[in-house]
C-alpha cells in the first residue's frame, strides 16, 4: 500500500540530482526507476514509496556534503541501513533522497582491553560478535534479525533482543555515536568515557529513528562471553500459569539471561520449520536461560527449576549441551520466518505491557482474532513484557490487509490502556505513526516536534515518521474516537 506522506516538499529533481552527481561518482547515485525500485520499502513490505534518488556514499566527507546539499535545497532525506526494520522507518520519501549507509561496513577497531568496538553503521550486528569472539567478548543486544540487521539501524531503533532483560538494549551498550547533523556538520554524541559533558544527547539519538542525525560511526561496549549457558524449557497447560511463572522467577531474585514465551499457535508454526522438539500439546512454553560460570549456572538452573515446578509447569527440559540449547532457541529466533511459511503475509505487532496483564491481553487477542477472522500467533519477550502478536493475512484477498491493520491497532491501543506502549523495540516508523495519538497528548506530541526542531529545524530528516503531525493526531482522535480505548487518567 502506498503511504501518503502528509509532509510534502516542493523539490526540483534536476537541481538536487545535479548537486549529488557533483559530490559522488556516477555509480553511487541511483536515479532510474528500475534502480530505485529495490529501495521502495524496508522489512515492512506493506508500505511502499519510490524515492527521487538513492545515494550510496563511501566516506564521511561525502555524507557531510550530501546533507549540506539537501539542507540548502530543502530536500527531505531518509537514512537507510540494511532495511530489516519492521515499522517502515526506512521507507523512502517520495520527494526525497535515500541515503544508504550500505557501503559503511568496516569494523574499524576491536579493542579487547577497553572492551569496545568501533564500527561503521553498515556493519551487521552479528559480525561485531564474530569479530570479538577470539577475545572471549561479544556484543550483547541480539535482535532476531541479527544476521542481517546493521548497527546504525540498531542505534536508530534502539533495538532489543532476547537477552535484554539482563544485558540491556542498544542504548545501554553504545558509548559513542559519530555522525552528521542535517546541515552537514560532524558531531559526536557520548564519549569513550562512561558519560559525556552536558546533556545526555546519546540517550535520545538511540531510538530516534533517523529523525535527528545521520550516523557514520558507532562505538559499542563488548561484554565478556559467559563460559556456559543453559536453557530450561518449561511447558504449561495454561498461558496465565506461564505468565505467573515469569513473575515467580523474578520474585525469587533471579534475572535470567533470557526469558521468552511462545503460545500454542507459535510453537505449532515453528516446530515443522526448525524441529526444535517442542511439546505441541502445551498451551505455552517458557524458555528460561541461565548463563555464567559452570558452578554458577548449575546453582541457578536448580533454583529456576524449583520455581518453575512450583508455578505449575507440566514438564521441564534442561538443555544438555550447546547444540541442544541452540536448537531450543532456534524455534524462538525463527518464529517470524516460520509464521511467514504458513501464511502469505503477516503483520508483527510490538506492544509492551506490564507482565501481569498478559492473560488479559492474550484473551483480548483471541477475541479479536475471531472478530477479524484472522489467525494470530504470539511470541513474547516475557522478561520485559514485550509482546509480538503475528497477525496472519493474505494481501491478495481484498480487505484483508485493512482488517489485519485494524486488528493490530486494537492490540496496540489495548497495550496503552493496560499501562504499556505501542512499540517496545520495532519503532514507530510509518506503521504506528497514527497510534502515537493513542499514547501521547497533543501537548506531548508538540514537545516531540520541538525536540526534533532543535536538531532539524526544517524537518528534512525522515519526515512523516515517528511523530505524527498534529493534523494526523486530530484525525485519529476523530475517526477512532469512540472505537479507540481511552487511556487511563494519567495525572
Amino acid at each position, binding site marked *: 500500500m502506498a503511504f501518503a506522506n502528509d509532509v510534502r516538499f516542493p523539490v526540483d529533481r534536476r537541481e538536487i540530482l545535479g548537486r549529488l552527481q557533483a559530490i559522488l561518482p556516477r555509480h553511487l547515485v541511483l536515479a532510474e526507476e528500475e534502480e530505485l525500485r529495490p529501495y521502495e520499502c524496508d522489512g515492512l513490505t506493506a508500505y511502499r514509496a519510490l524515492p527521487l534518488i538513492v545515494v550510496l556514499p563511501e566516506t564521511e566527507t561525502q555524507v557531510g556534503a550530501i546533507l549540506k546539499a539537501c539542507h540548502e535545497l530543502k530536500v527531505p532525506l531518509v537514512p537507510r541501513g540494511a532495511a530489516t526494520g519492521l515499522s517502515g522507518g526506512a521507507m523512502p520519501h517520495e520527494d526525497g533522497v535515500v541515503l544508504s549507509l550500505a557501503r559503511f561496513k568496516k569494523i574499524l577497531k576491536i579493542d579487547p582491553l*577497553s572492551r569496545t568496538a568501533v564500527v561503521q553503521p553498515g556493519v551487521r550486528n552479528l559480525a561485531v560478535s564474530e569479530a570479538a569472539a577470539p577475545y572471549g567478548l561479544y556484543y550483547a543486544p541480539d535482535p532476531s534479525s541479527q544476521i542481517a540487521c546493521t548497527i546504525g539501524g540498531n542505534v536508530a531503533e534502539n533495538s532489543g533482543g532476547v537477552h*535484554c532483560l539482563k544485558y540491556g538494549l542498544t542504548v*545501554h551498550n553504545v558509548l559513542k555515536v559519530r555522525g552528521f547533523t542535517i546541515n552537514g556538520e560532524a558531531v559526536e554524541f557520548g564519549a*569513550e568515557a*562512561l558519560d559525556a559533558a552536558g546533556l545526555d544527547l546519546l540517550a*535520545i539519538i538511540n531510538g530516534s529513528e533517523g529523525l535527528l542525525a545521520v550516523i557514520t560511526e558507532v562505538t559499542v561496549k563488548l561484554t565478556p562471553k559467559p563460559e556456559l549457558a543453559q536453557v530450561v524449557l518449561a511447558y504449561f497447560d495454561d498461558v496465565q500459569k506461564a505468565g505467573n511463572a515469569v513473575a515467580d522467577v523474578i520474585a525469587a531474585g533471579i534475572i535470567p539471561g533470557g526469558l521468552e514465551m511462545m503460545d500454542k499457535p507459535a510453537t505449532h508454526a515453528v516446530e515443522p520449520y526448525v524441529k526444535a522438539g517442542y511439546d505441541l500439546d502445551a498451551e505455552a512454553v517458557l524458555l528460561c536461560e541461565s548463563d555464567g560460570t559452570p558452578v554458577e549456572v548449575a546453582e541457578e538452573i536448580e533454583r529456576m527449576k524449583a520455581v518453575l515446578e512450583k508455578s505449575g509447569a507440566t514438564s521441564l527440559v534442561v538443555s544438555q549441551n550447546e547444540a541442544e540449547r541452540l536448537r531450543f532457541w532456534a524455534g524462538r529466533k525463527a518464529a517470524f520466518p516460520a509464521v511467514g511459511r504458513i501464511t502469505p503475509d503477516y503483520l508483527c505487532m510490538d506492544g509492551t505491557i506490564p507482565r501481569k496483564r498478559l492473560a488479559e491481553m492474550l484473551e483480548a487477542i483471541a477475541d479479536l482474532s475471531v472478530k477479524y477472522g484472522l489467525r494470530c500467533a504470539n511470541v513474547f519477550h516475557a522478561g*520485559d513484557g514485550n509482546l509480538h502478536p503475528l497477525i496472519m493475512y493474505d494481501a491478495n484477498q481484498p480487505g484483508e490487509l485493512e482488517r489485519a491493520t485494524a486488528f493490530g491497532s486494537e492490540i496496540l491501543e489495548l497495550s496503552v490502556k493496560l499501562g504499556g506502549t505501542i512499540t517496545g523495540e520495532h519503532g*514507530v516508523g510509518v506503521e504506528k505513526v497514527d497510534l502515537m495519538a493513542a499514547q501521547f497528548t497533543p501537548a506531548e506530541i508538540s514537545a516531540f516536534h*520541538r525536540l526534533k526542531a532543535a*536538531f532539524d529545524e526544517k524537518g528534512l530528516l525522515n519526515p512523516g515518521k515517528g511523530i505524527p503531525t498534529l493534523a494526523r493526531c486530530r484525525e485519529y482522535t476523530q475517526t477512532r474516537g469512540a472505537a479507540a480505548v481511552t487511556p487511563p487518567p494519567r495525572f
Partner: protein
Amino acid sequence: MDAQLKEWIARVHDAAEAGKALCIRGGGSKDFYGAVPVGELLDTTGYRGIVSYEPTELVVTVRAGTPLAELEAALKEKGQCLPFEPPHFGAGATVGGMVAAGLSGPRRAAVGAVRDYVLGVKLIDGKGGLLAFGGQVMKNVAGYDVPRLMAGSLGTLGLLTEISLKVLPLPMAGMTLRFAMTETEALKKLNEWGGKPLPIAASAWCDGALTVRLAGAFAAVRAAREALGGEEVADAGAFWQSLREQTHPFFAGDSPLWRVAVASVSPPLAQPGSTFVEWGGAQRWLRGELDAGQLRAIAAQCGGHATLFRADAESKARVGVFQPLSPVLARLHRNLKQAFDPAGVFNRGRMYPDY
C-alpha cells in the same frame, strides 16, 4: 489534578511571564554540584510518596520529592535495590534530585548509570505544560527517549514531578578483596579482569591499594575469589559507603575536587595532588588546585571530560564546572533548552552559563 501540581504550573506560568528564574530544589543535598543555584526557590519535598511498586515487574514509580532513603528502604524490604548506588550526599536527598543530578555510585561500571534505569518521567515544562514521557515498562521506543535525557540535566529542561525506575534484585552474595599495587598496575589489572566473566561489582584504587568488590551468585563469588587472590576485607560495607557518599578521607578538606571521566584504559593522569580511581579506571577523582585548561585537554585526549565537582563559587565561575562543549553540541544544547524551557525559567546557568 493534584493541588501541588496545579500550584507549580501556576508558578511556572507566572515566572515565564515575568521573566523570573526558578531554582528547583529537593533536599538540597546537591546544591554544591554545578554552578551556584540562582532564582526563586521551588521546593519539591512536599510532593512525595511511592505511587506504585511492583517487585515482580521490576518497576517502581515515585513522586520526585520522595526521599531517596525512603525509596531504598521500600526496595530493600522486597530484596531489591537501585543497583547504580546513587550518592545521597546528605540526609534529605530526593529521587528527583538523584535523576536531575544523574550521579551514580561505585557499581556504575558494572551495572549502568541512573539514566540506564529511568523508564518514564512526568514533568512540567517551561511553559507550564504537564507532560508524560516513557512509561512503566522496560522496553519502550514510542517517541524520543526524553526520560533518559532528563537524567543529569540538572533541572535545566523541566520540573520533574514523577519518575518510573527499573529496579533489580539485591545480589545474593558479596565479598571484598584488596591488593597492594601501583596505579598503573591497578589500571592494567582492572581492564584485564573486565574482559573476563568475573562478577566484579565495584573497584577503587587509592594510596597503593586496589580494592575490588565481588557481587553475584554464591558460586560465582567463591570462584572469582579463588581466581583473583588478594586479601579478603572484613566489614567492607563501610568502605564502599564512604566512596558512594564521599566521606572517605580522600574527599575531606576544602581543596578543589575534580571528577575526570575517561576511557578506562587511560594511563594515570599525572597531575599534581592525589588521585582516587573508580569504575574500573573510567572515573578518576583528583584533589588540588589544578590547571583547568590543561586537565580538560588531557581528559579530552583520554576520551572524556573533567568536571570541577566541588570548589568555591569563585573557582566555579572562573573555569566553569563542566567541560566546554564543541560548537555543534553547544548549539544543540541551546536549542533543546529553547524547546523545553523557552523563557529560561528553570535552573538558569546551573549547567552552562549561556542558558
